[in-house]
Structures are given as structure tokens and as C-alpha cells.
């Protein structure tokens, strides 16, 4: 293989940074929504004994993003959690690009399969 435009070590460093900042950003959003949630609902009594399932507003990514726009505290926490879930997905998406730059077709294919499974689970599965 000729000189790849991006080395394995550079890929490792970018992936490391991506994961770190993804976690920090999502934790910050979750904390922000969490403080707001506690101020608003802190003295109410929750019921987690019986599984009822979450309401529609916090169950699909589209609705969650809408909830953030509507400034609902539970929606903001859920948005932070979605950012957290998206962090490893972004890592896989970046790997597709990195393997493509390295002209490593086998691994472009392998990584695309993983990305497809993730997107199927996150976006299509309703």
C-alpha cells in the first residue's frame, strides 16, 4: 500500500478525541436538563414499580429533538442521552471515512455493515 493520507495512529487519536468530547458534551446536556427537571418535579412522587413505557415524546429521535425545541426538561435530558448513544455511532461513521481514505475496501465494507445495523436500530425500527 502506498502512503495513506491518514495513519492508523492519527485515526486512533481522532477516535479518542471524538469519544471524549461526545461523553463530555452529552453529560453536560443531561446535567442541565437534570437540574431543571429536579427543580420542576423534585417534590412529586415517581412511579417506577410498574412498567408503563415512556410517552411518545421521549421515544423517537425526531420527537426528542422537538422536545428540546419546546424547552421541556425531560426532553432535554433525553436529548443528552441520545447524544451519548450517538457518540459510538459517530465513531463508526468516522471509521468508514478513515478506512476509505486508507483505501482499505474490506474494512470500509465491514464498517458499513456495523453502521447499517446501528442506523437500523436507531432510526428505522419504530
Amino acid at each position, binding site marked *: 500500500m502506498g502512503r495513506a493520507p491518514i495513519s492508523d495512529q492519527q485515526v486512533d487519536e481522532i477516535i479518542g478525541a471524538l469519544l471524549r468530547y461526545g461523553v463530555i458534551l452529552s453529560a453536560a446536556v443531561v446535567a442541565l436538563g437534570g437540574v431543571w427537571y429536579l427543580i420542576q418535579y423534585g*417534590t412529586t412522587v415517581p412511579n417506577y414499580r410498574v412498567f408503563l413505557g415512556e410517552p411518545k415524546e421521549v421515544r423517537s429521535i425526531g420527537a426528542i429533538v422537538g422536545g428540546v425545541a419546546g424547552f421541556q426538561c425531560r426532553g432535554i435530558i433525553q436529548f443528552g442521552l441520545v447524544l451519548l448513544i450517538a457518540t459510538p455511532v459517530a465513531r463508526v461513521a468516522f*471509521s468508514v471515512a478513515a478506512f476509505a481514505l486508507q483505501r482499505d475496501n474490506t474494512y470500509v465494507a465491514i464498517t458499513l455493515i*456495523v453502521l447499517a445495523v446501528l442506523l437500523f436500530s436507531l432510526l428505522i425500527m419504530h
Partner: protein
Amino acid sequence: MNVLELTALVALISAAAGFLGALTGLGGGVIITPAMVLLLGIDLHYAIGATLVSVIATSSGAAAAYVREGFSNIRIGMFLEIATTVGAVFGAFAAARISASALGVVFGVVLLYSAWLSSRTRGAPPADQPDDPLAVRLRLSGSYPSPQGPKHYKVGGVKTGFSLMFVAGTLSGLLGIGSGAVKVIAMDRAMRLPFKVSTTTSNFMIGVTAAASAGVYLNRGYIDPGLTMPVVLGVLAGSVMGARLLAGARPKALRRVFGLVVAVLAIEMIYSGLTGKL
């Protein structure tokens, strides 16, 4: 108990679990679910959903450090993630079909197995082994940094490792755990990777595996923002403190105590499941 009190309690349990998990290297996720179910009477589905998301946080946080150090093998991780993500989606679907009692029993058995595993010391992999032809085709072999310079290693048992990874993914999707124990077995025993490589690559894969089931969990309404918030923040805070306190060291006595706690919770989970209390 109101929301404020419950949040504080869940955050405290999660921080302790994250702290112990980081100190012992066993991951804290496994004890949060049983603690929430058995001590706080929270429904198993909510507990599993919250824990699964926290697993993504700790795995990604730790992976960020390991990847930069050059121990994780990204090619092995990517290849095996095909098996773990498909397994995870499958497991997450199965979780919706299985009753809480049955789920509790399976959870307990897996916990017991993890506790038993953690009590054993791992043997060193053989210094030399023939490369699996499939590993050569996929260019899975690699090297890791050591005081004597980069050390090369070969990779065996690719098919067995891949199949075991499907099982690990299924368990992860079914129970909302990282399944680190099963992942490490697949890479230690089947593929015979060096200790540091299998541990860090397993950790690297956990986030992606958990993300695959998280989509299904989210759509099924298992992820409650109010409950997941203290779990994620608690575990993150606990594991960061644990990692800072003891960079790399794994005290044996603490491992034993943690293993014992896991075993007790496991038996309690199986008992509650069998007597229909979940």
C-alpha cells in the same frame, strides 16, 4: 419517596458502582440494575434501560484513553462488532418478549458467571501461535506498546471468537449490560489475544454494542430520562474518581469483595425471579 430523594439515592448507588467498577476493572453496570430492582423496587425494564445508557458512557470514556495509548485493535473491534451489534438488536427484541421474572433469572445466572470469572486469574496466552488464515485475510494481527518497544501478536480462532461475540451481543441487548466478561473470554481463550489488547478492545466494542440495543430500548420506552439521568451522571463521576485514584492498579482484595457483592445480588435476582417477585 419523592423524585428528589430517589434521584439522590440512585446517583449514590451508581457512583459507588462506577467507583468500584473502575477500581476493580470489572465495570460497574452489572450491580446497578439488581440494586435498583432489589433495593428500590424499580421495574426491571426501566432499570435495564437506564443501565444500558450508562454503559455507553463509561465504555466511551475509558475507550478514549485506551485508544490513544495504542492497545486497542480497531480492526479486530470493527470486525467483531458485526456480530455484537446484530446480536444486540436480536437480544433487545427478545427482552420485550420475555417476562420480567425469566429475565431476572437469566440476569442472575450471567452475574453469577461473571463473579466466578472475576475470581480467577487469567493465564498468559501462548507466546507463539499460528495465525488463523481468516485473520491473515482480514489483517487482524497487530502490535501493542511495551517497555521493550512494540510487541507483535498473531490472532487465532476467528470463527469461534465471532460466534461468541454474537452471544455477548445478545446478552448485552437482553440484559442491558456491557457483557465485557463474555467479550474478554472470546478474545482471551478463542482468539488468544494478549491480555491488554483483549481488555481494551472489548471495552472499545461495548459502546457500539450497547448503542445498537439502545435504539430498540428507546423505541420501546425503556429509557426514562428522570431515572437514567442520575445513573449516567453517577456512574461517570464514580468511574472517573476510581480511575484517578488508582491508575491501572487492580487490588486483589477489592476484586474479591466486589465479586462477592455481585454473587449475592445474582442469587437474590434468581430467587426473586423464581418466586415471581420481579
